[in-house]
């Protein structure tokens, strides 16, 4: 995550390394929030993947859908929590790191792409990769823009 540094004077940005080093050690309640959110997100993802199985040459709808939904939610949560709501210790770990992180998956996507390549479905592998990245990126962008639009007009 690359947080903005609102406190730093203009033209003299706080060095990112220094900002990273000052991060507090995770407290137990923060870890508990991540655990709880991650459990919920993982359950939803695992449930969908069991409900929508796919062959190596079929479109992995379960992974595609959870990744796009998680990206949209994360863009919404992070923008709202960083730019709109007062500082809260546990919403970001619960909703962002926990729910969205547990709901989305990178490793499953990579293994799916590998299986498509092995099955010589190169077009599918490229299409699936590009579609996931483009739609996932667009979902973050759209959710971020939606939150900011509300702030400006409020």
């Amino acid at each position, binding site marked *: 995550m690359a947080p903005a540094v609102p406190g730093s004077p203009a033209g003299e940005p706080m060095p990112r390394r220094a900002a990273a080093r000052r991060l507090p050690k995770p407290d137990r309640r923060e870890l508990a929030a991540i655990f709880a959110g991650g459990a919920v997100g993982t359950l939803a993802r695992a449930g969908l993947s069991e409900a929508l199985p796919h062959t190596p040459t079929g479109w992995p709808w379960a992974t595609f859908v959870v990744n796009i939904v*998680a990206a949209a939610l994360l863009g919404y949560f992070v923008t709202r929590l960083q730019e709109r709501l007062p500082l809260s210790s546990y919403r970001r*770990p619960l909703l962002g790191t926990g729910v969205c992180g547990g709901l989305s998956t990178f490793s499953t996507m990579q293994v799916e792409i*590998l299986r498509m*390549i092995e099955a010589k479905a190169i077009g599918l592998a490229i299409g699936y990769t590009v579609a996931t990245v483009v739609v996932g990126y667009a979902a973050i962008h759209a959710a971020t823009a939606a939150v900011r639009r509300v702030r400006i007009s409020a």
Partner: protein
Amino acid sequence: MNVLVWAGVVLIGGVGSVLRFLVDGMVSSRTGRAFPYGTLVVNISGAVVLGLLTGLALSGDAALLAGTAAVGSYTTFSTWMLESQRLTEERQVGKAGRNIVASLVLGVAAAALGQAVGAAIR
């Protein structure tokens, strides 16, 4: 497929998410936040392990618990995309592009490596 297995999915999913947070934090505190190496390390290491599990040809509940729940929750797509989008917002388009391409190339290579190792020791 029963209640115990799904309770396992819930618990393991929570643990995988906490592990992701800790590894990301450890890597980021060493490399700084200019480039999202933390997420990259998490995702590539997860791709190796899931490739390994695929090579071992786990099936049924074992695949669900070890693969979908554990490694699936440890790795993240949403944070990878968020960090890429935020880099672009900061006009660091080159870094964002490198983050996306490097993750994909290394990710598939890592999964292939893990799968080959898994198939060899099966």
